[in-house]
């Protein structure tokens, strides 16, 4: 019996091996490769019969997805022959992903974009020039938009994207803290830098008497958030041709110095060692910071906080003027798109009254069309002064000079600003060390 078993086994094994021949294996391999390769092509090119599919990408959180889904539903209802395929690219690397798609020639038809990487991508042909499309659309003329938002995407005489929402920075403040510090609950509407520092000093307090500050007057700022101080002092970031940074002017230095003094002279901003592991937003909501400079994008989240009495104040007036920084999110069309006209219809819908109102309703930002923003952005049911954002955006907002190497120059400033915040170098040294390096980058000399 045992011997029979020994004899049978090899025979069975031989048959099994012969049964799976080389052609069958080859077929299996080809099928596997096809299975791996085909879905990608299919996904990008699938289109229902008689329906044109427009791919539209955006970033953000789940709330952003809801906004775009609602817009897409309504658009599809109005345009039954166009389907919007939303592509939600979450995380911080939205533009790196867009860049990879551009290289792979599979860009979405319509892309959300913002100011920081815009210039690099527009210089490299990632965006369609929308100027010819705008020629026939008077409702989308420049004067319909907040100028700062519109101009963000304007290069030379070409418009590469249209803003769908805009933001600007103001000061969120805690009214309870002000009362407790013996200050009026609201700052003066025309307050100045000196008023701001005065209030922040009063609001910086050791509440439990242990010798450590528990409540700080204001948040600490990156170099980038100091731009409104620089504009307020009469300075600016770059020369008009964007060939070099001009932080070495007395006005620019004065703007930086204003915040340097807040950190190292008046100690009204927490140092790193004073920071609990919290975001600035959390620190404001939990009462660790009394005045917080941030944008209109945070308004909706702040509205959810029920335990504090807060409002927004205008930017304090500097020695020369009042200034804030505007940021923008826009929509662009890919030059690779086979359905540019349908893509343009989608953008027009997003910028229509109905589309713009959706952004305001979800609190995503200020509608970029001025007329719509004034109608729908301020919430009459809240006690806060949201209309101050509209006034700031309209009257005293500036935009950052964004060039093709912006991210790289920002890294240099970040590095040296870290040392400023640690108190290891002063503003003169910051400017002296960083400017030659960044200006070489702007001129392309480091290539």
């Amino acid at each position, binding site marked *: 019996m*045992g*011997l029979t078993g*020994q*004899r049978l*086994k*090899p*025979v069975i*094994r*031989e048959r099994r*091996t012969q049964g*799976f*021949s*080389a052609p069958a*294996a*080859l077929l*299996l*391999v080809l099928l*596997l*490769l096809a299975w*791996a390769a085909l879905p990608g092509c299919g996904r990008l090119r699938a289109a229902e019969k008689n329906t044109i599919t427009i791919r539209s990408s955006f970033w953000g959180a789940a709330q952003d997805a809801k906004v775009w889904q609602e817009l897409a539903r309504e658009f599809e209802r109005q345009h039954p022959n166009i389907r919007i395929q939303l592509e939600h690219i979450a995380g911080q*690397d939205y533009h*790196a992903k867009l*860049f990879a798609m*551009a*290289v792979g020639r599979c860009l979405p038809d319509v892309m959300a974009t913002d100011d920081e990487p815009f210039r*690099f991508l527009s210089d*490299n*042909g*990632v965006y369609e020039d929308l100027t010819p499309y705008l020629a026939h659309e008077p409702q989308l003329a420049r004067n319909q938009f907040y100028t700062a938002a519109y101009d963000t995407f304007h290069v030379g005489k070409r418009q590469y994207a249209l803003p769908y929402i805009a933001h600007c920075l103001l000061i969120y403040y805690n009214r309870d803290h002000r009362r407790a510090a013996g200050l009026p609950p609201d700052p003066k509407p025309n307050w100045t830098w000196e008023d701001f520092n005065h209030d922040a000093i009063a609001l910086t307090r050791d509440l439990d008497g242990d010798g450590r500050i528990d409540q700080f007057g204001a948040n600490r700022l990156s170099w980038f958030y100091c731009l409104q101080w620089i504009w307020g002092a009469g300075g600016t970031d770059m020369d008009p041709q964007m060939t070099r940074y001009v932080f070495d002017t007395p006005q620019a230095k004065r703007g930086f110095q204003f915040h340097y003094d807040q950190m190292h002279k008046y100690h009204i901003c927490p140092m*790193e*060692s*004073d*920071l*609990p*592991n919290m975001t600035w937003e959390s620190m404001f909501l939990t009462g660790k910071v009394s005045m917080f400079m941030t944008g209109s994008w945070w308004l909706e989240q702040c509205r959810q906080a029920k335990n504090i009495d807060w409002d927004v104040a205008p930017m304090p007036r500097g020695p020369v003027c009042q200034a804030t920084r505007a940021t923008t999110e826009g929509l662009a069309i890919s030059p690779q798109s086979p359905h540019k006209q349908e893509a343009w219809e989608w953008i027009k819908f997003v910028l229509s009254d109905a589309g713009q109102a959706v952004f305001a309703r979800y609190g995503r930002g200020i509608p970029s069309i001025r007329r719509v923003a004034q109608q729908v952005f301020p919430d009459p049911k809240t006690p806060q002064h949201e209309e101050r954002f509209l006034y700031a955006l309209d009257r005293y907002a500036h935009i950052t000079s964004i060039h093709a*190497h912006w*991210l*790289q120059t920002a*890294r240099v400033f*970040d*590095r*040296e600003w*870290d*040392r400023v915040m*640690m108190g*290891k170098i002063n503003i003169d040294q910051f400017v002296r060390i960083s400017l030659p390096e960044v200006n070489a980058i702007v001129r392309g000399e*480091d*290539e």
Partner: protein
Amino acid sequence: MNVQPPPEIPVSLSRRDTGDAAGYGPSHAGRDGRRPVRAGSATRRRRYWGQTLEGYLFVAPWIVGFVTFTVGAMLYAVWMSFQRWNLLAPPQFVGLANYQKAFCRDPLFWQALANTAYYAFVSVPLRILAALLLAVLLNQSVRGLPIFRTIFYLPSVVTGVATSMLWMLLLNPDVGGINFVLRRLGVAHPPGWLTDEHWAMPALILMSLWSVGGMMLIFLAGLQSVPDELLDAAHVDGAGAWHRFRHITVPMLTPAILFNLVISVIAGFQVFTQTYIMTGGGPANATLTYVLYLYRNAFEYFRIGYASALAWILFFIILGLTLLILRSSAFWVHYEGERH
């Protein structure tokens, strides 16, 4: 029980059963000393090549992937390293300019390399020592040993991102667990860790000790393969615990140390996740590591040519260090009591 096949069973079949590949060849004698039957040699040759082809076809998906996405990409990166290219505009051939820039005109290259070398050369010995110490402790006979082994190994299977988030909490200067303990021990002003340019890299090195579980397992396996007879003989000869460890256990562990050393040096020079998530290279570039700098050049500044040059420079640095370690192993690695 070894049962010989009876004579009527074909020779080739019996060889296949033993897995003897020589049986497929036309000119080899079988184990029973018979020459293969010449009339079947052509069939066997066809079968041999058929089966070889089948084997290659089955591994073809992997080979295609490896050649396309690894070897192909590496070779493509060589070509890209000689270009000035952002992938969108047409490439411009610049010869060795990217390499020249890295070595001669880019202070950040040297800073990133120095930071990475600092991290690797300090963390690697510490990690090996910590893993060895843990392995020795976990090689003792104590109750609940499997539980301890599991606990010390677990951090190794946690993803880098989760570990980074956890350590950001632990290293928080104000409310972090580490400074809490230091304050309890009487340190009035504990370090700012990730926010202090002098302490940020030591903090990352400290954190690297968190995931020595993999190395520990290799040492543990090595410790368990040290022959008891050798240790007993040394004990009988009067050697104390330290001398047995120093002169028997450690030499027997040197192959495992070599393996861990090579792998750790490679991983140390490729450190990325921690610096990307925890510090972003800061403060003031104190934790700007080589791969983080490479990543920025490729995916933030879109300088693909320069990033490719940086990648190849790193490849040769790691290759050089690995060869150096392997060459040096002749002097300190022992295999079964003999020097390699």
